[in-house]
């Protein structure tokens, strides 16, 4: 079954890291990604640019409305994701708990909805 791991970090805190800290954090991510490729969990994953690059799009009254900023202002911001293949929720939780940001921020685990197309 597929699960999306949504990674929330406090950008201010990550931005405040020294170069050494930041490099160590990044290499932890590389090692983690390598690990879940080997274990067969990995389906995809990306890091996002900071939230100030976000644009929110809606259509209201038939018109496209474009606003600067994320969907919601929060203390921790969506900063990346992994799409994983896991046996069940316990397996997915095990993977999510090893994402480096689980220690500093929050990881939300959501099962992917499958549609039967006939």
């Amino acid at each position, binding site marked *: *079954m597929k699960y999306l791991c949504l990674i929330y970090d406090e950008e201010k805190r990550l931005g405040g890291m020294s170069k050494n800290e930041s490099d160590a954090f990044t290499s932890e991510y590389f090692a983690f990604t390598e690990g879940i490729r080997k274990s067969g969990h990995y389906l995809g994953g990306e890091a996002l640019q900071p939230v100030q690059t976000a644009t929110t799009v809606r259509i209201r009254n038939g018109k496209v409305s474009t606003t600067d900023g994320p969907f919601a202002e929060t203390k921790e911001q969506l900063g990346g994701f992994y799409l994983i293949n896991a*046996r*069940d*929720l*316990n*397996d997915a*939780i095990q993977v999510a708990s090893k994402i480096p940001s689980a220690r500093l921020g929050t990881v939300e685990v959501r*099962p992917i909805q499958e549609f*039967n197309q006939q």
Partner: protein
Amino acid sequence: MSEDAAERVRETVDAVYRSDSRRVLATLIRLLGDFDLAEEALHDAFAAAVERWPRHGVPAKPRAWLVSAGRFKAIDAMRRRARFDASQAELAERLDAPSSDPAGWEDEGVEDDRLRLIFTCCHPALPPDAQVALTLREVCGLTTEEIAHAFLTAPPTVAQRIVRAKTKIRDARIPYQVPSRAELPDRLDTVLHVVYLVFNEGYSASSGASLTRHDLSGEAIRLGRLLIELLPEPEAVGLLALMLLHESRRAARTSPAGELVLLGDQDRSRWNRDQIAEGAALVERALSSRRFGPFTLQAAIAAVHAEAPSAAATDWAQIVGLYDVLVRADPSPVVELNRAAAVAMRDGPSAGLGLIDAILARGDLGDYHLAHSARADLCRRLGRTAEARASYERALGLTRQAPERRFLERRLGELPD
């Protein structure tokens, strides 16, 4: 078959339902992979037993017979639905595969099924109130109405919690398994907290007229016994000990008029000696493992009280010592408050008062009625009447429980002018 014999068979079916329906359900959930299907199958299996056993006799292994009948009925129902829904046919085929070996349905694995059921109902991905409702519904077999009554909630609210929890178990694929050794301590902790919450809800109802709701405490103790039978971990043993030692005081905790009686004022001849003996033996067993935690420490404290002939003759030094360990193992303001009360007994009221005032000054427990009533009591003993009155009034403003309110009002009335 004569009327008498048929009546005896019906009694047997009832007895098997009481003793084994939860075990059969636990196994059916594993075989069918779905709570609702399994409940329907359980119902069908007992309906078949009521019909067949009087005519054909009670089978040698009633539980295996029921599992087999329930599984057969479920597959049958899926095949009938398959005429309208192709996915049901596939499910029915999979369930009917030869790998589902009937020999494995009896005994081995069945105890594991009950553990699987407990761990699934208490999965940390479910909200706490749903863990409690689901455990009482599926593991203990209480009806939705009984759970709602016990928790002073509306039945539709409880029903909705259970439906949502089952939906999450299915859709997020919460597995039906006992956690691995690495996950076990955390997961067991969640289970123990659910059991303790059920016990406490029965022992000291958070609101309402009656101080205790007996059935819930009984269910929690039954759950505790089941748990140590299936998984004899020290903290599970400690929790059962704690519940038994608290339960042993039930008869002495309220006066015939329904008034609250504090530990120090209780008639100790009314304590249940059998429960104390069992609880104290379990405490010893948990402590000797050297892998115990907060529940065992609380049980050890309760055991010191239980073995004291009177409040004055209690070994307060030992109780303070146990609280010192507990404060380190499981730091919380409530544990500190209890420790302060024990220090007041060992060293006198002003020592305890100093500790309570330090907790309150830190900004903790300001909304906790017991902190203010404990403070009031120490001020009363020190002759600081005005402070005692203010603290009793503060406590009164914070509790909804009728017997507690009457107790505080009585204490206020007894203060000198």
